[in-house]
C-alpha cells in the first residue's frame, strides 16, 4: 500500500482548495460585512470574490505540471482534465455573474457557497479514476444542486422542482451505487483500469450487464437523457434562473465527460456491438437505445411546449441524445467532438437563460408568446437570442452547427462502413430538422409577432448586456473559427492518451 504524500496531494488539489477558500471568504464577507447592504451590492461582492477565486484556480491549472496521479490513480491530473476543469470554471464564472441582477433570494453568501461547492464537486468528478471518488464527488455536486434548485423559498414551484429533482436524483444515485457494488464484486477493485481488466474476460456476464444498465440509468439521470429526464422540465422551469443555468451547463459538462471516461476506461472491452447483423451485449446497444429515445422524444415533445424554459429542457434531452452518439463511436475524435459540443451547447443555453433573467423580470413569465415583439423592445438582447437559438438549432456559421457537423463526422470516421452509425446520423440530422421548427417558433415570437399595446422598451443592466454579449460573441467566434479550441482539445486528448 502506498503512503499518502501530503505534499503531492496539496499540489494536485490546489485549484480545488482555492475554490473552497474563495467560497468561505465570499460567505464570511457577505455574512459579516454586508448583511444590511443592498442586495445587488452583496451579489456583486460575493460574485467578485468567487470569480477571483475561479480565475486564480484557472491560472493554477494553466501552469500546473502536465501529469499527476494520486494513490494508485484514484485521482489524476492530465492536460485533458485540466482543460475540462478550466471550461467548468469559466462556466461557473458566467453563471455567477448571471445571478447579480436577480432577486430570488437574500441568502447571497450561501448561494455563492453552494455554487462553488458544486464546482469543487465537478472538478473532482472530472479528475476521478476511481468509483468511490467518482461517487463522492458526484454526490457533492448533486446535493448542492438539489438545494440550488429549491433556493427560491418564496415560490412553491421551486421547492416542488427541488423535491422532484432530489427524489429522482436519490433514486439514480442508488442505482449507480448498486451498479458500482456489482462492479466491485466483479473486479475486486474500484479503479477504472482494474475494472476494465476484470471485465474484459467475461463480456456476457449477467452481473456485468446489470452493472452497465444501472450505471447508464444513474448517469442518464444526470445528463437528462430520456427516459430518465422527468426532473428536467420542472427544474428548468421552476428553479431560480442561475441555479437552472448551473444545472443545465456546468453540471452537464462534468457529467458527460466523466460518463465517457467511465465507459471507455472502466468498461473497455465490454462495448458490445449493436448492429443487427452481429449483436453483442455491452454498453453500446444500451446507449443506442437511450440516444434514439432521447432524440425522438426530446424533439417531438419540445414542439408542444409553450414555456421557453420547458422547451429548453426538452431540447436538452434531444441534445443529450445527439451527444450520446459520441459514446457510441468512443474514439479520440468523438471525445473531442463531445467536448466541443457540450461546451458550445452550454454556452448557448447559458445565454438564453441570461436573457430570461431580464425578460422574466419584465414580463412575469417565461412563455414563448410573452416574448412577442421582443426585437423592438430589446433589440440587443433579441439579436443575441437569435444567435443562441440558431446555434442550438445548428445553423451555420454558429458553433452549434460545427459541433453537430464534427460530431457526425467523428462518428462516421470510426467505421465508415457501419450501417448502424449511418442510420443514427440520418436520424439525428432528420431530428434537427424537426428541432428547427420549435426553435423558429421562439424567434417568430420575438421577431415576427407585434409587441403588445402600450409596451415600453425593456431595460437591462449594463452587466447583463455585457454578459450576454460576451456569450454571444463566444458562440459566433467558436462557430466561425472552431480551430481555436478544437486543436487544443485534440492536442490534450492525444497528450493524455485516452
Amino acid at each position, binding site marked *: 500500500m502506498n503512503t499518502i504524500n501530503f505534499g503531492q496531494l496539496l499540489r494536485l488539489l490546489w485549484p480545488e482548495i482555492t475554490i473552497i477558500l474563495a467560497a468561505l471568504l465570499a460567505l464570511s464577507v457577505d455574512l459579516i460585512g454586508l448583511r444590511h447592504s443592498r442586495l445587488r451590492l452583496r451579489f456583486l461582492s460575493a460574485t467578485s470574490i468567487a470569480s477571483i477565486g475561479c480565475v486564480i484556480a484557472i491560472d493554477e491549472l494553466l501552469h500546473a505540471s502536465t501529469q499527476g496521479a494520486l494513490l494508485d490513480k484514484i485521482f489524476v491530473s492530465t492536460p485533458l482534465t485540466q482543460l475540462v476543469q478550466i471550461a467548468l470554471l469559466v462556466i461557473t464564472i458566467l453563471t455567477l455573474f448571471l445571478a447579480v441582477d436577480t432577486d430570488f433570494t437574500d441568502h447571497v453568501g450561501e448561494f455563492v457557497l453552494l455554487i462553488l461547492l458544486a464546482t469543487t464537486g465537478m472538478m473532482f468528478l472530472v479528475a476521478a479514476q476511481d468509483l468511490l471518488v467518482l461517487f463522492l464527488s458526484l454526490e457533492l455536486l448533486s446535493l448542492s444542486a438539489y438545494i440550488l434548485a429549491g433556493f427560491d423559498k418564496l415560490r412553491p414551484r421551486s421547492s416542488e422542482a427541488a423535491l422532484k429533482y432530489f427524489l429522482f436524483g436519490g433514486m439514480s444515485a442508488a442505482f449507480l451505487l448498486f451498479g458500482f457494488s456489482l462492479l466491485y464484486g466483479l473486479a475486486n477493485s474500484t479503479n477504472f483500469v482494474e475494472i476494465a481488466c476484470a471485465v474484459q474476460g467475461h463480456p456476457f456476464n449477467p452481473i456485468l450487464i446489470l452493472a452497465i444498465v444501472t450505471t447508464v440509468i444513474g448517469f442518464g439521470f444526470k445528463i437528462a437523457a430520456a427516459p430518465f429526464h422527468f426532473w428536467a422540465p420542472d427544474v428548468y422551469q421552476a428553479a431560480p434562473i442561475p441555479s437552472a443555468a448551473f444545472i443545465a451547463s456546468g453540471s452537464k459538462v462534468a457529467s458527460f465527460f466523466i460518463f465517457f471516461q467511465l465507459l471507455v476506461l472502466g468498461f473497455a472491452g465490454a462495448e458490445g456491438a449493436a448492429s443487427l447483423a452481429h449483436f453483442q451485449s455491452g454498453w453500446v446497444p444500451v446507449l443506442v437505445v437511450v440516444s434514439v429515445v432521447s432524440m425522438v422524444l426530446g424533439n417531438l415533445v419540445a414542439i408542444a411546449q409553450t414555456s421557453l424554459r420547458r422547451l429548453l429542457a426538452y431540447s436538452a434531452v434531444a441534445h443529450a441524445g445527439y451527444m450520446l452518439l459520441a459514446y457510441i463511436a468512443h474514439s479520440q475524435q468523438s471525445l473531442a467532438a463531445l467536448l466541443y459540443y457540450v461546451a458550445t451547447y452550454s454556452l448557448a443555453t447559458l445565454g438564453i437563460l441570461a436573457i430570461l433573467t431580464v425578460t422574466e423580470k419584465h414580463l412575469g413569465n417565461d412563455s414563448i408568446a410573452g416574448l412577442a415583439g421582443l426585437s423592438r423592445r430589446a433589440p440587443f438582447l433579441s*439579436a443575441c437570442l437569435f444567435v443562441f437559438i440558431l446555434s442550438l438549432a445548428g445553423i*451555420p456559421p454558429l458553433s452549434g452547427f460545427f459541433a453537430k*457537423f464534427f460530431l457526425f*463526422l467523428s462518428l462516421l470516421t470510426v467505421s*465508415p462502413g457501419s450501417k448502424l452509425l449511418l442510420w443514427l446520423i440520418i436520424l439525428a440530422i*432528420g431530428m434537427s*430538422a424537426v428541432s428547427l421548427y420549435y426553435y423558429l417558433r421562439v*424567434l417568430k415570437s420575438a421577431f415576427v409577432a407585434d409587441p403588445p399595446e402600450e409596451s415600453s422598451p425593456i431595460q437591462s443592466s449594463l452587466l447583463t448586456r455585457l454578459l450576454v454579449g460576451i456569450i454571444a460573441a463566444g458562440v459566433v467566434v467558436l462557430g466561425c473559427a472552431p*480551430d481555436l479550441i478544437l486543436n487544443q482539445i485534440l492536442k490534450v486528448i492525444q497528450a493524455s492518451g485516452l
Partner: protein
Amino acid sequence: MLAWTIYLSFLGALALLLLPGRSATLARFLALLVSVTTFALALQGFLQHRSGEMFTVVSVPWIQSLGIQYSLKADGISLTLLLLTGIIGICGVLLSWNIDVRVKEFFAFYLVLIGAVYGVFLSFDLFLLFVFYEIVVIPKYFLISIWGSTRREYGAMKLVIYSFVGSAMVLVGLIAAYVVSGSRSLSLDYLAGYHFSPHFQMWAFPLVFVGFAVLAGMWPFHTWAPTGHVAAPTAASMLLAGVVMKLGAYGCLRVAMTLFPLGLGPWGFHVLGFGSWRDVFAILAVIGIIYGALVALVQKDFKFVIGYSSISHMGFILLGLMTLNQIGLSGAVVQMVSHGILAGLLFGVVGRMVYSRTHTRDLSALGPMHLSKVIPFAAFTFVIAGMASMGLPGFSGFAAEMMILIGVWRSYPTLILFVGVGLVAGVAYIWRAMQQAFFAGGPPATSPPDHPLPPITLPERLAAVILIVSSIIVGIFPQIFLHVIHPALNSPMFDGLSKGGW
C-alpha cells in the same frame, strides 16, 4: 475583388442594423448602394475572366484539423450566376421601395440573403458551400413571415422545413463522401477527382441530388415553392424564384453531378421502365414542366400562376441537366439566368405593380379594374415578360429552352413530345393570366374610381427596364454567356460527367 460581393453584403446588413434614426430613405439608398456595388464587382469579375476557366479568389486554411479550407473560386458558370444575383439584387431593392414597416431590418435580412447567395456561387469548399447554403434559409423565413401576405407564417415555415430537410440530405451525403474519400479535404476538385466506388455513388448521388433539387422545385418536392412565393413580399419572391431556386439547381450540377457521376449510370436492371437515376430525374423534370404549366392554367390567384410557372421553368433546368450533353447543360445554365430574370420581372409586376396597388390578386377581381388603362406600364411590362416567358425568339427564354430542347432531342427523343405539351400549356397560362388580369374588357368605367391607383413610380420603371433589357441581351447574344460556360463545362472538374455521358 469578387469575395467582396459577400463581405460587402454582410457588412451592409450590419451597417443597416446599426444605422441610427428611423430614416427609411437612408436605409433604402444604403441597400441600393450595396447591391449596385456588389453587382459592379460581379460584372468586373465577369469582364476580367472572359476565358471562363476556374480561377481562385481566396484560399486560406480554415479548420486545419479537418482539412477544410476557406476557398472561394469562380468559373464561367459561377460568374454567370453571380451576374444574375447582382441584377436581381438591384431590382429587388428597387421594387421594395414601398416597404415602410421595419425598413432597416427588411433590407438587413435582404442583404444577408444576397450575400449568402453570392457565397454559395463562389465557394469551392463543400463545407463553406454548405455554410452559405444554410445561411440562406434563415433570412428567407423572416422576410416572408414578417413582411409577407397570404398565410405568410405557414408559407414561411413550410419553406424552411423543406429547405432544411433538403440540406439535411445534402449534409449526410457530404459527410459520407468526406469520410469515404479518406477525411482529407472537402474541396470540390479533390472530391471530384476521387474515385468513389460505383456502389457508393449509386446511393449518394440521388441523396445529394434530391437534397439540392428540393430547393430547385423538383416535382414532387415542389410544394413549398408556390405557397412560399405567394406569401413572400415582392423582393423576397423575386429572390426566391430568381436566385434561391437556382442555388438548388447549381448544387445539383456543381456538387451532386460532379462528385458522383457514376450515380447517373445505368443500374443494370429496369424498374417500371427506368434504367438509371438519370431516367428517373428526367421523368420527374418533365412531370414538373407539364404539371406546373397545367396547374398554373387553372389558378385564380395571379401570384400562384407565376409561382407554378416557376415550377414548370425549373423543370426545364433539371431536364437540361439530365441530358448530359454540352448543349443541354449549357442550356440549363442559360435557363437559370433567363428564368431568374423573368421570374423576377413577373413577380415584380404581380407583387409590386399590381398587388400593392389593388390589394387583391384574384384574377376575376382584377379584370374589371381595367388595369391596362389604369396602369399601362404594368400591362406593358407583363406582356413583354409573358412573351419572354413563353419563349418567343429574341428573348432569353427562347435561347435557353431551344438549347435544352436540342439537348433533350439528342438524349431522350421521346420526351420531346411531352415537353412540347408543356410549352403549349406555357403559352396558354400566360395568355390566360394576361387576358384576365389586364385586358378583361367589360363595360368601360363611366365614372372615375373613388380611389385612383397611384401611378407607377420611378424605381419600379427602372427595375422593369433593367430586367427587360437583360432578358433581351441574353436572348440576342447568348454567346456572351456561352463563351464562359463552355470552357467551365469542359474543365477537369466535369471530367467524370463528360466521360460518362457525352
